[in-house]
């Protein structure tokens, strides 16, 4: 589903990604861990082209991200084409980024109506199901400010799912939550993983990674240090840097 080859990304003179190779198969859940500043979030943001990569190649579902290759040359995609690809990739942010001027329901139906062009009734029906699945049936008409952090993040997940994406990106979805609210959000994500969604999750929740992930990736200083089955990586890390990181967080 996602294939990255020798990905490089710099912000000015700061090299954030320094040659990332990564493969995510369909229906697979990949968790990325690593110290802050290791480039985890940047990698995720490259996948839906919120950041442009400087070199290397990145494919999602067999197509290059942000470019089209034609006769050995790369052409930048038009805005319309980029939007169409982003619409197939859901993203959940650390800070939720719900639209504060819209109710929970309006947040969820906005993109299906505006981007996919489906009818309001149809969008509302799907949104109702998604909010129900996230345990927020009675919160549809609440504004984000009236919801707890955990509820907001679950609305944000429903909003992403409403576009019926083939890939979901989670950027530290529980890092801004009070500890007692983390469980509800993780439960929704676990449910999603069980249903067969392809997911890339940047997280600090080792328990979730151990249980749900098919592959655990440890990143540091812009490279993938180690990747493998979560239990193996967590219990028997091969690299000194992985061991040092895990000794601090476990």
């Amino acid at each position, binding site marked *: 589903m996602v294939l990255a080859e020798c990905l490089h990304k710099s912000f000015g003179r700061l090299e954030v990604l320094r040659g990332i190779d990564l493969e995510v198969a369909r229906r697979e859940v990949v968790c990325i861990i690593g110290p802050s500043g290791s480039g985890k979030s940047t990698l995720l943001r490259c996948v*839906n082209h*919120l950041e442009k990569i400087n070199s290397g190649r990145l494919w999602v579902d067999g197509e290059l991200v942000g470019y089209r290759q034609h006769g050995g040359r790369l052409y930048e995609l038009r*805005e*319309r084409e980029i*939007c*169409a*690809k*982003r*619409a*197939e*990739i*859901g*993203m959940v*942010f650390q*800070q939720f*980024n*719900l*639209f*504060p*001027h*819209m*109710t929970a329901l309006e947040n969820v139906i*906005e*993109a299906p109506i*505006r*981007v996919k062009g489906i009818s309001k009734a149809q969008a509302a029906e799907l949104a109702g199901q998604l909010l129900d699945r996230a345990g927020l049936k009675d919160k549809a008409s609440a*504004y*984000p*400010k*009236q919801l707890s952090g955990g509820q907001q993040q679950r609305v*944000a997940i429903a*909003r*992403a799912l409403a*576009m019926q994406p083939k890939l979901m990106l989670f950027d530290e979805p529980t890092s801004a939550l009070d500890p007692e609210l983390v469980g509800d959000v993780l439960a929704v994500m676990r449910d999603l993983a069980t249903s067969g969604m392809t997911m890339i999750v940047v997280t600090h929740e080792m328990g979730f990674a151990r249980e749900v992930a098919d592959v655990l990736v440890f990143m540091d200083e812009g490279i993938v240090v180690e990747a493998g089955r979560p239990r193996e990586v967590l219990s028997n890390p091969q690299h000194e840097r992985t061991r040092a990181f895990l000794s601090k967080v476990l």
Partner: protein
Amino acid sequence: MTTPQATQSTGQAGQPEEIKAVPVRHPGRWLAAAVVLVLVAMFVHTLVTNPRFQWNVIWSYFLSSRVLDGLEITILLTVVAMAIGIVLGVVLAVMRLSANPLLSWASWMYIWFFRGTPVLVQLLFWFNLAFLYPRVSLSVPFGPSFVHANANDLITALTAAILGLGLNEGAYMAEIVRAGILSVEHGQVEAAQALGMSRAQTMRRIVLPQAMRVIIPPTGNETISMLKTSSLASVITVTELLYAVQLIYAVNFKTIPLLIVASIWYLIATSVLTVGQYYIERHYARGSVREQPPTPWQRLRRSLLTFHAPVPEPPSQLPLREGR
């Protein structure tokens, strides 16, 4: 000092007794209030007793058709010039924030020019445009023209006033809109883009509605200011409110009463605008606070319907959208 007995005494139900203390006196406040009251009384007294105010003249002209026609032109000028200003302001603000350096620069130049020259000069300039361009035509740039018109026919006093006030307002509105757009968190744009929304959709559906909270209050100020600035159009012979009363007192020399007539109408119009601004602000504040406080009208209605001393009710009973 209070005795320990006084602080620890308890009421009947075992609850601490309600504190009954002698309040602190504020002689300064009483003095200030007295001074203000005397000044107000003096003002009212002179209003009533000075015959030169000529209140009978004021009321006889208050609803005269010439004054009302002037008021109509003033309102027309305000509405049209503000509409031009707001549309232009949004366009200029988006241009200013655009990635295209030429657009950004053009917007900057426009704002620099129209904020940098007095609006009175701009009004006179538009009024006298015919000296610069006697003929105006629609044509291919640097090529043949299709339609021509005499500038003096095209630019009447009223269109000159609308152009002058509107184009000038656009420069001020541009800065207000830009501040509003910049006040919206970048995460909002990213969330919208991640959902596949285009930049235009993101601006229209996500950024601008949130920017409105920051844009509305200064826009209200600008509208009230425009209502009064439109009186400058009197110098280019637009018979708006001020020029209408000037034309009357030029003949009958009842200068002060007629200026008071105009002032009362300006006050009425700005009061109406202030109320309108309050409700528009409420509309765009939805979602920004958990619960909105009731409007003065809702408070009044509620206290009338409850038939007893108004108890402050918890605002939670108020539907959030009632401000619409």
